[in-house]
């Protein structure tokens, strides 16, 4: 059978093994090759028709401000109209394909991405300032999403019988809703975009891909490979452009059936409001799959292994310069552990190697753009009353948007540093009297995405499982780096509406259930009664 490949169990694509010299060389080679072809030209693509003309916007490398990585063509409302009309026409046929065919395309896409993994990762180091290891992890996560959803689709979308009564047959299945808008963030520029788009596609929706402005070249890298492996050009459209100009227009468009969004709380909530505003001619109620921010805490218990705790916090707080929705932005220490922990953490921050993301020595790279740079430096300069700076680093240069790590001690859990998502290398530290208070403070924000606890006390770990209510809780490890299938990812509260990317049943959010009941009784005869033995 042609989908034999999908009958193999899912396994995560291994991260690049940089111990191997050949692997390091391959990455470096991709980077060199890419540097020679900049700036990349990113078109708008409607039904396979590329348009490079018209308004474009340059994208510069965040590590090196004067280095142009891409020239992005900006989509217009007219592009959106044409794309949506084509997608709406193509949708029915796509929806009615056997699910195996769509799933196989996902699997092929995974192979295709894997073949070019270092090209796609190298592009991330330059376009969004992601260091080598993290850029590679983003690419492998994209591969994982494809392979995982392909396999889950066969299970979750397949027709299943309901009930067991003679004389009637009931079948329930899930099918696509229509055209889905995929509105993706720049921080996991390939993984999240791929995850949301492939979930929508495999469930039987047509998609309109709107990458973030800061990561449109990577988005286009995905689009090109989708078309290459055989996704129909009328089913997938590529619409780069500023959210402020076309974002709302897409969301409010009557031909949109659903929206998959990952990004900030502000944009997410406004999008939910706009999606709820029904327009004349709109065929259905819009559904929104929404992943928003976090204000994630790690608790350091008084019996924690500090070697592990310091390393775990450093990685969670400063990995990709804190620009992850899962990042740790609050540390809650318990009692007397505060002083030794903070002392070691400050020294660890002082030792962080801040460098351009494409330099393999980089431990802390730049932030995404000028806006983030100004905003974060503003917070560091004026964190508000009641925040005591423990350590403020010095950026190595102003060639790029480097924001050095900043640690603040706060005494009030309601302080803005303990409440607002800042999305940068800024960490607030609060000293709790005991573990009980630490748990209370940990859940005292509007968000509920990730959290972590370092403790060697079984009763405290048990209490944390019950009371530290977040979507993804990590015990005795950092709170970032969720892997597809192993740690289905997503939160609730103001962090999202409860879906789990890379987990079971995620696909069902992209589909409508249908049930068909057939009366099999004809004049007192039904084939359902088995002949007597």
């Amino acid at each position, binding site marked *: 059978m042609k989908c034999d490949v999908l009958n193999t169990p899912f*396994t*995560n*694509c*291994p*991260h690049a*093994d*940089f*111990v191997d*010299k050949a692997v*390091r060389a391959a990455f470096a080679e991709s980077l060199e090759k890419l540097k020679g072809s900049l700036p990349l030209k990113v078109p708008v693509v409607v039904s396979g028709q590329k348009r490079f003309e018209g308004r474009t916007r340059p994208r510069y490398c965040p590590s090196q401000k004067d280095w142009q990585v891409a020239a992005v063509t900006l989509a217009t409302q007219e592009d959106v109209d044409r794309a949506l009309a084509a997608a709406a026409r193509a949708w029915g046929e796509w929806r009615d394909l056997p699910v195996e065919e769509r799933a196989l395309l996902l699997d092929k896409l995974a192979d295709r991405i894997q073949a070019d993994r270092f090209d796609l990762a190298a592009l991330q180091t330059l376009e969004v300032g992601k260091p*080598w*290891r993290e850029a590679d992890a983003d690419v492998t996560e994209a591969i994982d999403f494809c392979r995982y959803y392909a396999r889950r689709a066969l299970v979750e979308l397949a027709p299943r019988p309901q009930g067991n009564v003679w004389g009637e047959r009931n079948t329930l299945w899930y099918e696509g809703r229509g055209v889905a808008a995929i509105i993706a963030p720049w921080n996991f520029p390939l993984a999240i975009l791929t995850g949301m788009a492939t979930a929508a596609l495999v469930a039987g929706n047509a998609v309109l891909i709107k990458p973030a402005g800061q990561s449109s070249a990577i988005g286009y890298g995905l689009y090109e490979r989708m078309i290459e492996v055989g996704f129909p050009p009328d089913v997938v459209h590529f619409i780069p452009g500023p959210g402020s100009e076309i974002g709302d227009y897409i969301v409010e468009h009557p031909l949109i059936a659903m929206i998959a969004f990952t990004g900030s709380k502000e944009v997410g909530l406004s999008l939910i409001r706009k999606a709820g505003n029904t327009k004349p001619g709109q065929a259905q109620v819009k559904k929104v799959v929404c992943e928003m921010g976090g204000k994630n805490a790690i608790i350091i218990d*008084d*019996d*924690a*292994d*500090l*070697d592990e705790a*310091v*390393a775990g916090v*450093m990685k969670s707080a400063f990995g990709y310069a804190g620009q992850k929705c899962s990042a740790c932005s609050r540390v809650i220490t318990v009692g*007397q*552990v505060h002083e030794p922990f903070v002392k*070691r953490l400050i*020294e*660890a921050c*002082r*030792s962080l*190697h801040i460098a351009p993301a494409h330099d*393999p*020595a980089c*431990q802390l790279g730049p932030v995404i753009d000028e806006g983030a740079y100004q905003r974060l430096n503003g917070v560091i300069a004026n964190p508000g009353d009641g925040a005591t700076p423990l350590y403020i680093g010095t950026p190595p240069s102003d060639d790029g948007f480097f924001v050095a790590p900043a640690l603040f001690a706060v005494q009030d859990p309601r302080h803005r540093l303990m409440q607002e998502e800042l999305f940068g290398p800024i960490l607030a530290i609060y000293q709790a009297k005991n573990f009980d208070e630490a748990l209370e403070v940990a859940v005292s924000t509007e968000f509920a995405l990730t959290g972590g606890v370092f403790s*060697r*006390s*079984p*009763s*405290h770990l048990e209490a944390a499982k019950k009371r530290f209510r977040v979507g993804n809780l990590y015990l005795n490890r950092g709170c970032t780096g969720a892997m597809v299938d192993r740690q289905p990812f997503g939160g609730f509260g103001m962090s999202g509406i409860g879906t789990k990317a890379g987990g079971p049943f995620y696909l069902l959010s992209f589909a409508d259930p249908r049930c068909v009941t057939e009366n099999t009784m004809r004049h007192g005869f039904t084939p359902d009664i088995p002949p007597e033995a």
Partner: protein
Amino acid sequence: MRVALVLIVELKKRPITRGRTTTSTRTIFEGVIIMAPSSLQAKILQTAEALTERMKGEKPSLFSKSRWLRLILDLAMEDHEFKVDMFHFVDALPMLTTNEQVSQHVRDYRLHEKRALPLWASAVFKMASNPLTAAPAVATIRTIVTEIAKTFIVGRDTAEALATLRRLHEEGFAFTTDLLGESTVSAAEARQYQARYLDLIRCLAQEVPRWQADAVIDNNHLGPIPRANISLKLSALEAHLDSVDTEGSVARLKERVLPIFLLAQQNNVFVNLDVETWELHGITYDLFEEIVTHPDLRSYPHVGIVVQAYLKTAHEDMQRLLDLVRKRGTPITVRLVKGAYWDYEVVHARQHGYPCPVFTRKADTDANYERLTVMLLQHFEELSPAFASHNLRSLVHALVQAEERNVPPLAYEVQMLYGMAEPERKAVRSMGRRVRVYAPIGELLLGMAYLVRRLLENTANTSFLRSRYHEGTDIASLMATPQSSISFNG
């Protein structure tokens, strides 16, 4: 805590076998024919019997000295759940500063409810579990754990260690020492470690010339060798080590490590680079190569590195070292170990989907150890062999092979951990071989990670020491040739 270097771990058995055994004479390495297995095996058995004759009536300190330790080891070997809880408790103990905290942990790990404990032990835990009576019980627990730690750690600081190292030397044993501690997470901590090592070198250089001469341990077959001998762990000396930036990691390390080697040379101190996890393996070898080919160190022979026999690349590692010696023109020492990070390597590789860098069957590691033993002995003038193991079979095999090849007895040495396998150590020494004891220095409680590792090692199902001293397995079966299914024609 930083995982201290371990010379030898008796690996866990994995149920993956492809039952093919080696028989008859076979050619290994560069066309050298070893003797027919049956006659080699006869000599091994003979030597093993001679050694055990010398070991009669002796038990290693951890199986005799401390009755606390013996009790804990016995219980751990009988009851897996107790072992896990007990070790988790001991692991956390250094961080627990108040009696109340210890009391809570005793309750959390339900140590006061454990059945089958001797009366006194369960009484101590019961008292400790009750906040009102905790104080004296907690003090008792701390004393016991500190006592146990003393079995494996030679001293809290250099001053304290020197007395013990001197005593060891008087008893006829050479030493190598390293500094235990927390893992290094910052440049400041790395600098502190470097300073401590530099200080250690100066202290040792002052101390050891006062000691009485011992012809066996103060010399190799060519003449005097340094009495002072230190082992370095690179992960302690630089916080920013990452294979993704191998070149940069090596450059950063070199700044910290080179001064240590140079000072050691000035003071006639031997320096060994310990090899830790696979992730740091390439960095460690690259660094070693840079250091020992440095113009000022090129002709200094008292440097060494580790080859881990559990690594699938161990043979290439050995070959690389041989090439290195030929390039620099001065010999080095190779400490041959089985490898101490087996659990970590297997779990890490599996979690990341990487190819597993280590053999998963213990017999393959044992067989590889013997194969590398032969290789070392063939090149003993370039690679001075240091056989580090507590496994009597591995050691006896090395002794017999050395004799077969007419390698002078002082051209190689045997290394064992402080606090373990004293009867073997004494027996090997009494046969006129140089024996070096790996003796770590560090705060007793901070050295707890090292201690837990030692305890785990001694209670592992496949531990040689366990089968020998706890279960009394007979010599002939302990001397069986490791049956490996790996083809070693590399």
